[in-house]
């Protein structure tokens, strides 16, 4: 497990800390912190029911996806008053991570939305519009998800194990008799019934599973659907599957802004590829190349030579200038890399397509290589508890500096000043008019009328829960990235991320697998062939894979979900007909990193505040001056809580100079106040 944070904000010190047994401890701390935010938000929105929000903000931001959250944090950090809204009851929009039960509710919500045509609540806000003002209505429906399909292969029988275990508590899933994709609506209740006492029970139950000392127990145990639901809280299922390049824009931003202190990370252990139906390791670092059993020594040399060249390819233009207009693949051929090596470089290291031009391919390879070794032998990090943590971390940062958060709270329409063609206010879903100088909005809130084109790219996604890793190795707690080259050169390459339970995204004994590719058909059409190639998918749902059969060499799929997500990343401001101070943030893109979203956030921020620094490091608590006015003006809770933070941090440093990770989350949160 890796933690990145700075000891002081002036001198960046990167601390890496290995913790082997600390998960449980953290989890508690962590949850309490998460609830901290969640709580204050709930408080906030309840309060809002009675009271109005302040009627004036510098920036109103709608949508809590990564880009919007970064903008919110950046604006709040430099003293702008920020109102951050989301129509959903959870953070991060399409970047969210759900517990299994939360995901089932999300699926249910999707299905309801498909059935019910929402009638626009008409014009209650008409009276709020003055002369010289125009109205731009926003969409109240999110149509970014489509083609959602769910299949369950886990046995639905009652659990028969527990022979010697303590008897189950009364929280046995209430919907045990009716579990199937149609009835998952019940799962919300199931989620609610999983209360604290059962949590501790689960803790005890699951110990034999996670303990490597007795694998036979693990083999014996069948994971039933009930089990998945019961342990649903152990899952954190991402809607988008991304990893963090350890020298990518996101990691740099997390470090620079000190936001990294709100999260924990684990590095990816394996970079794999699938060739001829076999999963094998991609030699990408020096140690991998050395240890590789598949490569001949000559191949090792050729590969190392090529990778070394890529590291500073700009210094040797003579090597590639004849190929700048030609595909990267041809360049690789010219470099005398064997077929084998060409595949590795193209699909798994550069992660580009057959058509990608040489220079872009070289850049991608270089980026990959530069990320190696910063936090281990692979170039990637993954945030524990899922990718949805990252937008939340930025929201938290925004809140610490006074931003106000309301979930289940949206904007109905924008009020545009006709003369200047600028948004001067928004009208929220409660009919309050809130004036602002800038409005930042996520793409899915924009109506088609404001678009120049409604043709979108799509991302195909599959989420699988499986019973074992695709690459059995000595340590089963590894996150793997698997690149699956396309079978025909026109088809898109599929990217697969397999998460282990120690990434805190799935229950012990299972693996959470994300598949992603750019769509050519529906997600199921695109991805089902890959799923059946790599996994054992039983023909009858609930059927146990037969022991000893050849199929058993593959991991079995317990549960799978397919869906398409709209990819708006190619759009820019010219794609919308909107006032100039409305900034649209596109949703997640299909690439592995998040650089695109971070760059967009930075450019929007510079549009809003051209002279301000983007996410400067948060000051050390002890360096903050408390002198009556100043920060207090933002909220009475502020200095008090920051003081706590200072004390706690100080205490932490005395106690143990070598980073006790648990302390990272003890940073007291600020309750943004709406009292004034």
């Amino acid at each position, binding site marked *: 497990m890796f933690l990145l944070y700075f000891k002081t904000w002036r001198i960046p010190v990167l601390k890496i800390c290995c913790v082997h047994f600390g998960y449980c401890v953290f989890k508690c701390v962590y949850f309490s912190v998460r609830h901290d935010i969640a709580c204050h938000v709930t408080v906030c929105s309840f309060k809002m029911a009675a009271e109005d929000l302040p009627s004036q903000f510098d920036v109103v931001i709608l949508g809590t996806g990564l880009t919007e959250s970064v903008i919110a944090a950046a604006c709040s950090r430099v*003293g702008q008053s920020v109102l951050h809204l989301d129509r959903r009851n959870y953070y991060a929009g399409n970047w969210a991570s759900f517990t299994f039960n939360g995901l089932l509710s999300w699926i249910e919500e999707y299905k309801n939305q498909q059935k019910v045509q929402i009638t626009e609540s008409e014009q209650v806000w008409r009276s709020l519009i003055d002369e010289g003002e125009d109205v731009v209505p926003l969409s109240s429906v999110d149509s970014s998800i489509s083609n959602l399909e769910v299949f369950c292969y886990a046995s639905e029988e009652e659990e028969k194990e527990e022979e010697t275990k303590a008897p189950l508590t009364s929280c046995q899933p209430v919907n045990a008799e009716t579990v199937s994709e149609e009835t998952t609506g019940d799962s919300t209740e199931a989620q609610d019934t999983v209360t604290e006492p059962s949590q501790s029970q689960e803790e005890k139950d699951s110990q034999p599973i996670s303990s490597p000392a007795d694998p036979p127990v693990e083999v014996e145990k069948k994971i039933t659907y009930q089990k998945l639901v019961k342990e649903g809280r152990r899952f954190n299922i991402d809607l988008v599957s991304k990893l963090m390049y350890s020298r990518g824009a996101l990691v740099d931003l997390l470090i620079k802004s000190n936001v990294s202190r709100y999260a924990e990370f684990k590095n990816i252990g394996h970079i794999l590829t699938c060739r001829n139906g076999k999963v094998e390791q991609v030699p990408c670092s020096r140690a991998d190349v*050395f240890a590789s059993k598949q490569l001949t020594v000559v191949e090792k040399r050729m590969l190392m030579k090529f990778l070394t060249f890529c590291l500073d390819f700009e210094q040797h233009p003579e090597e590639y200038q004849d190929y700048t207009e030609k595909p990267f693949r041809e360049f690789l051929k010219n470099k005398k890399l064997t077929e084998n090596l060409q595949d590795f470089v193209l699909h798994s290291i550069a992660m580009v397509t057959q058509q990608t031009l040489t220079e872009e391919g070289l850049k991608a390879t270089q980026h990959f290589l530069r990320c190696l070794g910063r936090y281990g032998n692979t170039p990637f990090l993954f945030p524990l508890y899922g990718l949805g943590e990252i937008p939340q971390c930025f929201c938290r940062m925004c809140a610490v500096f006074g931003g106000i958060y309301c979930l289940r709270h949206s904007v109905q329409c924008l009020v545009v000043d006709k003369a200047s063609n600028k948004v001067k206010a928004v009208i929220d879903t409660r009919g309050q008019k809130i004036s602002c100088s800038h409005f930042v909005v996520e793409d899915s809130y924009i109506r088609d009328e404001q678009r120049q084109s409604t043709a979108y790219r799509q991302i195909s996604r599959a989420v699988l829960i499986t019973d074992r890793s695709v690459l059995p190795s000595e340590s089963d707690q590894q996150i793997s990235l698997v690149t699956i080259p396309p079978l025909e050169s026109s088809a898109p390459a599929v990217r697969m991320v397999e998460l282990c339970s120690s990434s805190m995204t799935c229950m012990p004994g299972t693996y959470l697998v994300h598949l992603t590719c750019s769509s050519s058909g529906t997600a199921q059409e695109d991805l089902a062939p890959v799923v059946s190639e790599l996994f054992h998918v039983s023909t009858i749902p609930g059927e146990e894979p037969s022991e000893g059969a050849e199929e058993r060499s593959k991991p079995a799929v317990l549960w799978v979900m397919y869906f398409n997500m709209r990819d708006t990343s190619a759009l820019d401001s010219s794609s919308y007909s909107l006032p100039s101070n409305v900034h649209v943030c596109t949703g997640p893109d299909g690439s592995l990193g998040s650089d695109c979203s971070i760059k967009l956030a930075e450019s929007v921020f510079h549009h809003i505040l051209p002279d301000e620094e983007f996410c400067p490091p948060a000051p050390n608590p002890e360096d903050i001056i408390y002198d009556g006015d100043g920060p207090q003006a933002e909220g009475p809770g502020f200095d008090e809580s920051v003081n706590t933070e200072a004390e706690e941090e100080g205490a932490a440093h005395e106690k143990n100079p070598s980073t006790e990770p648990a302390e990272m989350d003890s940073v007291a949160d600020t309750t943004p106040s709406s009292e004034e």
Partner: protein
Amino acid sequence: MHGRVKIKSTAQQEEEKRKEKEKKLKAFVSARDAVLKKRSAGEHDEEALQLTRQLLSSNPDFATLWNYRREVLLHLETLREKDEVQKLYESELHFIEACLKVNPKSYGCWHHRTWVNTRLPQPDWTRELGLCDRCLSLDERNFHCWDYRRVVVKASGVSVEQELQFTDRLIGSNFSNYSSWHYRSTLLPQLHPQPAPDSAPITSPSPTTSPQFHSHRVCEEQLLKEYELSHNAFFTDPNDQSAWFYYRWLLGRAEREEMISCVYVSREGERVSVAFSKPVHAQSEGLMLVLDGQPQQVEWRSTHPRLRHSPVWLCDLPPGSISDMSNEHNLTIHWTEKHTHRDCALYTGCAESWCRDSATNLELFRSELSVEKSSVLQAELQSCNQLLELEPQNKWCLLTIILLMRALDPLGHEKETLAHFQTLKEVDPMRSTYYSDLCSKFLIENTILKMEYAEVRVFSLSNKNLTTLCHLDQLLFVTHINLSSNQLLRLPPHFAMLQCLEVLEADDNAIENLEGLYHLPKLEEVSLRNNQICKLSDLESLASCTKLTRLDLRGNPVHRTAHIESELSQLLPRVTALSL
């Protein structure tokens, strides 16, 4: 601006930091003084432990404090029960661990830890091993930890297999790690020793010297695996030297056994010369000379006073003992310490006689590389050549190829070797003189081999770009040597081993030092044209060569010295033919 968090200016922060620092320093100094005072007062109590603890946890490199702590602990140990002692030292281990977090490379900490474990009634080696693993996973090159680990492994009796797997793991994660490779080289001979010697062909021809096979050898099956491992490493990164060094160790031949390689006796000076396989200090080695069954009291001396350890030693026999040409003598040199001896018979009518091993026989010069089977070497040479094709500029590869070629067939590969040396000097100019010296060594070896085949006593090394002279102990019988047209700078003390030398030609070099022309009893003629001899004093050693009559010094700066001729005739009165 409104709403902004106010933070302290840099100057304010600096000031606070400075004050903080001062406060800390003051506290440290006063605590230090208190401790030192307690120590000089001989107080060994808990308080002392407490105080040193505070100081060491902020500065674990304070050796005096560790010493004091040891004194206190030893004292407390005498006052306590056994299980209390265990607790005392266990808490000490915990304390050291905390100090190691402050500085994982602190000499004091690691030394103290070793000491504590010797005092601990029941040391927990598993825990110590775990600690080492943790430290090494954070920094695999922490040699303090490596050292400590060796102690722990020895004490805890970890199996060699496990240790080998441990090195596997470390090398796997980063093979640029000398410590791991070296550790491997000590483990492999224990785990996979070479089977008992069955090969006669390369053993000494002398039946009395039993071949002492070196124990640091590894069985062939394992060797092949290790070759593969090092191939993987140097094909992955040919510029990383650690694997190359390991590879050279793998290819390395057994060390030569110590023996008397040659005995030479001359009636004229009534002198015996003995050559050994490696430099020895004969005066302390228990060397005994038996002449015709009679042990002789002789004085051993090396060929040059500057050589305390020398492969060649001389002694004078009692006057008249062998001077009569009509007598036959039997001479035996006993090397009592090594239980070895060598005979030499001096027949009637012979002025001199010797007994020796042939250089060709002994494979003396197959460099340091050699494996029993040349097919293995041939395969290795192929791999290296393959790498050289990919990396024509790689010096490690070039050097290894040269060594392999020498091990396989030094004369057959001479041309290629020279070409590779040329490339080496170009790609690695920083070490070009090293390569020149190495090349000189190989050329001399080749010439000696050729001479052995021809069985002559005339030795020519002219025009070979030599920069250094070596293997001069092999030239014990040479009477004529030609070193002309090389780049020699000196005739080193070893040159005095050429006890039979009569004529020396060393024209067209850059020789400025003639130290080695020292007590060469038969030297008659020396030609040193076009060299760099500058001072008369450089020629002084020539005075010890009593038979020298012809000396050619043309083209040397020394001729500019005033009164050189008269000075020279004074220095070397026997020289009759002097050219200046």
